[in-house]
């Protein structure tokens, strides 16, 4: 079982352990005197007005969606990039076609004003 992922797993555990240790130490050392004023939500020093929900803004969702498309594209491009120098020249053009199709999509979204933040 000599795979390197065991050690990544140990890194994850240790990486969670150290911040937890820091917070636990703080829990022992810090005073804890909660009262209503201290625990109220901070709104630049005035009382909160209304519930804390956010206006729906389509822009957040659209940027996340465009990011998703390009993320999947780059995931496809990683194996291509790794094996590029060992393949015939034809492989480069196939990858270029892949990228060009998605750049066309980006330009379409640009022209339709989807990438504005109004």
């Amino acid at each position, binding site marked *: 079982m000599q795979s390197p992922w065991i050690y990544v797993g140990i890194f994850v555990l240790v990486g969670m352990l150290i911040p937890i240790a820091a917070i636990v130490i703080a829990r022992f050392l810090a005073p804890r005197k909660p009262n209503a004023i201290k625990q109220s939500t901070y709104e630049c020093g005035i009382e909160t007005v209304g519930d804390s*929900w956010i206006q*729906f803004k389509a822009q957040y*969702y659209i940027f996340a969606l465009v990011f*998703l498309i390009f993320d*999947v594209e780059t995931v*496809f491009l990683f194996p291509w990039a*790794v094996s590029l120098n060992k*393949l015939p020249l034809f492989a480069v053009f196939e990858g270029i076609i892949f990228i060009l*199709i998605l750049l066309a999509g980006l330009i379409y979204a640009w022209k339709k004003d*989807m990438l504005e933040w109004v």
Partner: protein
Amino acid sequence: MTTMQVLFLIFAAIILGSAFKVVTTKKMIHAAFWLIVVLFGVAALYAMLNAGFMAMVQVVVYVGAIAILFIFAVMLTRKELLDKGPALNDNKSIAAVLSLLSFGGLYMLLRNWSGFMNMAPALPETDMVEELGTALVTPDMYLLPFEIASVLLLAALIGAVYVANEARSE
């Protein structure tokens, strides 16, 4: 019980428990975060199968993009962040019986399939990203699905732009 089996059981328990919590938790946002735990568990299973590339792709695409989309969708469309409906409904017993029957049926069907009941061939030693890359661009292997995937992504982008345009103009 080898170590691999113990680890597999731990991760399988994490995945199944979190999936159960996804369905039964009362707050929608908690459902999204339990889904993230499920996705991390699946990535860990991929890593155990020596498919490190797939594990990383799972984290990058699923957790880093799709789960964030879910969270945005949940957070931006709920006026109140607490849901008041019951988590389980009244047909629990019938549902449990039906699911046990379908599990039994599946087991009877798969019992005679060699791919299910025999030991798998030995795992590849290292991650074969290079072979995957070669396979993706060789014309008589997976070139056509590779290019069609880009067209599919383009279609998804155009569809999203269209729907968002309609949503914005109203």
